[in-house]
């Protein structure tokens, strides 16, 4: 196209003010967005299609050719591959929710420049949803242990940890579209996708998984455009000073909602599922989130009146510990999951002490005991180390054990005749702002309180094809695997920790 600038101007001149029918305000927003801003996208659909086609050809081509022939996935470190069973169905909903947010933004934001970016992102998100489901299926076919990959999208439905992912990602599209964009584009995509789709691929590659990087790096090439969408959306919002008070409240909340899940989830996947170890999650958090996202991005918006989220300092304080606490609950609750776990070795534990000084004093005993309880012949469940499963936060759905069980910030309160747990004062504040938004679902314990663990496993389809062996295992030992008979013999009852005696 000879005259690209003119072409861009013309394709942005389609909007008109309807006069024959008035549209309902389907997605109310409290923000006023100027009708004209900078175009974050600057691509015609024609160019976009050809660019994405080329990326698809490279990625799917490599997966189906050399990577499949080389049986790369079957040779990857099993510990790492188990993390992918958990991660892919979780990430997938984030992409799907993002696609829905784009529908809301296209509908609501009357700004032709921004809409150009949103429309490409809408199709990108379908792309990512498809890519991650494709990768799951690829692993079902090629990984050493397919169980878990074969039905992750079903099993995520009632999974205790997937609840937290769902809660975080529903914030992308259930509410004010701009608040959705803050959660999605400004926080999740700009702060965290480098960690998910770039740094995590280094760990994948170091652990023999060459397929995930092919997919994730291809995804990340779209994410950089989404970050531009986020920046342009934010710039449009701050350009009207009337927006600022609401913006800061929504931004503080968006950061916390995403941090509460993503930092816990990423740090567990990252630190506890590496075999060939390199950097820690904390190393990368300081680099990507603290220095880059806050230092090079958010702080630069200060002249426009936007401040670093008030919740950021609390997040920074707890990030060094929260992954370990989440991992402890996750590993202890292994029979509830649809992936296997690999206990830490002495070498792993030395690495943790090096990367997180003081780690051993807090968590070392748990890991010694966990290892002992991996063998089904001992008949002892790791879960029995604790009086009960922890309560789950009413807002973020994470277990209330943060930052560490010994200094937990968990609080319980009554509301509308029921007791509710909150993992932190931040989540409690979010609840207090709009309690009715967080009360529509059944809690994990409302569904499963009083269940024998074996019944939970059978009812939720957590058995392998033999109908007897659990999909989840506390270790990777293939000779000694837990069966439903072991679980029945262990006699463990799921109990609501908020249930009053």
């Amino acid at each position, binding site marked *: 196209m000879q005259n690209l600038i003119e072409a861009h101007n013309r394709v942005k001149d389609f909007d008109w003010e309807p006069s024959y029918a008035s549209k309902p305000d389907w997605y109310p927003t409290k923000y006023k967005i100027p009708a004209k801003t900078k175009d974050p996208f600057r691509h015609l659909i024609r160019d976009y299609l050809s660019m994405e086609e080329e990326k698809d050809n490279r990625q799917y081509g490599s997966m189906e050719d050399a990577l499949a022939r080389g049986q790369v996935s079957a040779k990857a470190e099993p510990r790492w591959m188990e993390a992918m069973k958990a991660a892919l169905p979780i990430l997938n909903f984030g992409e799907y929710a993002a696609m829905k947010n784009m529908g809301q933004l296209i509908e609501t934001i009357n700004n032709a420049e921004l809409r150009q970016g949103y429309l490409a992102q809408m*199709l990108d998100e379908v792309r990512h949803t498809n890519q991650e489901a494709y990768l799951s*299926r690829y692993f079902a076919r090629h990984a050493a242990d397919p169980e878990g990959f074969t039905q992750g999208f079903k099993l995520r439905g009632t999974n205790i940890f997937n609840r937290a992912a769902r809660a975080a990602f*529903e914030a992308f599209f259930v509410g004010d579209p701009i608040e959705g964009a803050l959660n999605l584009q400004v926080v999740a995509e700009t702060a965290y996708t480098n960690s998910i789709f770039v740094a995590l691929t280094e760990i994948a590659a170091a652990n023999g998984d060459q397929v995930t990087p092919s997919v994730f790096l291809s995804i990340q090439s779209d994410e950089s455009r989404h970050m531009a969408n986020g920046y342009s959306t934010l710039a449009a919002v701050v350009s009207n000073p009337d927006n600022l008070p609401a913006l800061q409240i929504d931004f503080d909340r968006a950061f916390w909602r995403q941090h509460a899940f993503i930092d816990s989830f990423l740090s567990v996947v990252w630190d506890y599922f590496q075999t060939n170890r390199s950097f820690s999650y904390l190393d990368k958090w300081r680099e990507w989130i603290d220095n880059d996202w806050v230092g090079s991005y958010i702080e630069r918006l200060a002249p426009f009146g936007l401040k670093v989220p008030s919740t950021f300092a609390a997040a920074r304080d707890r990030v060094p510990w929260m992954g370990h606490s989440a991992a402890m609950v996750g590993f202890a609750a292994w029979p509830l999951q649809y992936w296997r776990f690999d206990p830490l070795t002495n070498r792993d534990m030395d690495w943790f002490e090096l990367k997180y000084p003081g780690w051993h004093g807090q968590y070392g005993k748990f890991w010694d005991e966990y290892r002992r309880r991996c063998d089904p012949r001992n008949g002892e469940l790791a879960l029995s180390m604790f009086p009960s499963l922890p309560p789950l936060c009413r807002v973020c759905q994470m277990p209330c054990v943060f930052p560490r069980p010994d200094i937990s910030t968990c609080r319980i309160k009554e509301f509308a005749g029921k007791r509710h747990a909150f993992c932190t004062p931040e989540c409690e504040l979010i609840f207090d702002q709009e309690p009715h938004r967080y009360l529509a679902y059944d809690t994990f314990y409302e569904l499963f309180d009083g269940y024998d663990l074996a019944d939970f496993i059978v009812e939720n389809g957590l058995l392998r094809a033999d109908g007897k062996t659990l999909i989840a295992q506390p270790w990777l030992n293939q000779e000694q695997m837990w069966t439903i008979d072991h679980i029945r013999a262990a006699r463990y009852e799921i109990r609501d920790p908020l249930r009053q005696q």
Partner: protein
Amino acid sequence: MMNTAVQSPRDFTYIKPRKRRLSEYEAVTCYTQPDPAVFDRQGWYLLTPEGRAAWRPESTRLQHPHWFDFRDPSSMWQRNYVKLQAEQERAIERCVEDAASAGAFSEFDPDWLTEIIAGHYRVWSFFEYGLFRAFSRAQREALSDTLGNVLCFEAVDRIRHAQSTVLYLMALEANIEGFKDQGAKQRWLSEPRYQPLRAIVESLMATEDWAELAFAVNLIIDPITTEIGVSRLVRRQAPRHGDPITPMIIMTTERDRRRNQAWTEELVRMTTAAGLLNADDNRIVMRAWCDRWMSLAIAAARALAPVYDRLGPHAGLFEEELAAACARQATMMAELGLGAKGG
């Protein structure tokens, strides 16, 4: 390999394939949308400040016990969709490039160029853009992933059509001395012949029901109004006016239209299937949609009669074309069991 007595399956086990084997399309699409009636029994974790949940059954008046049963007959997922559209856009680009090199644009009848291409066809891009807006919102609300995705792809179809037209007219400007693409927006906004069309698209943009949107556009308005305003007028008449290029572009949009018609027909078949509890209710709803949109579609087509007059001595042409388009549409509706006399 694992040491379990029974071989583990090597494919997704939670999707019931439409055919014998799970297709790639089904594997990467089905159950990516959560639903409390499927695997997510605890419900939704978040409501909007106004109290609505992520998805609502009342987003359409049609009823079905399991929207996830829907399958796109074209089996589109992002990869084959993007490939198809990239190919179509490349075909357009090459055709325009070749036409320019061959000097074919100079063979266009000048009146055709100004009256029909710039004066009429370019105005249609606003209609397509309005549909892009409407389908983008509809994809947000659809009650399953397979439905959300076809609606999303249709939104992208529509913005592609709109942008393609703009780029085509820019190429004409570059190759035909003195030609200017101007005034289309003004005509869209005020010329009487386009006001019924604009009224339709504004009503579609204000239609909350995603199934009604697809039904109205793909089974009524495109087969009648777009057929009259674009296919039978521009595509069919162009060669008589020295223009073999524009039909080539329109045919890519017709390929999209056939795909969109096919999935919407599939939606009708699924919601009126024999044995489905709500089939009769759904038929009543769809007949009401027919009543609402048929008269608007025909009125918008009729308003375009003056454009046919500009084509020269073809008296009677417009009425013949409209009758033919309506007859074809009526046959399709009858085949779906939604004919005027009970199908």
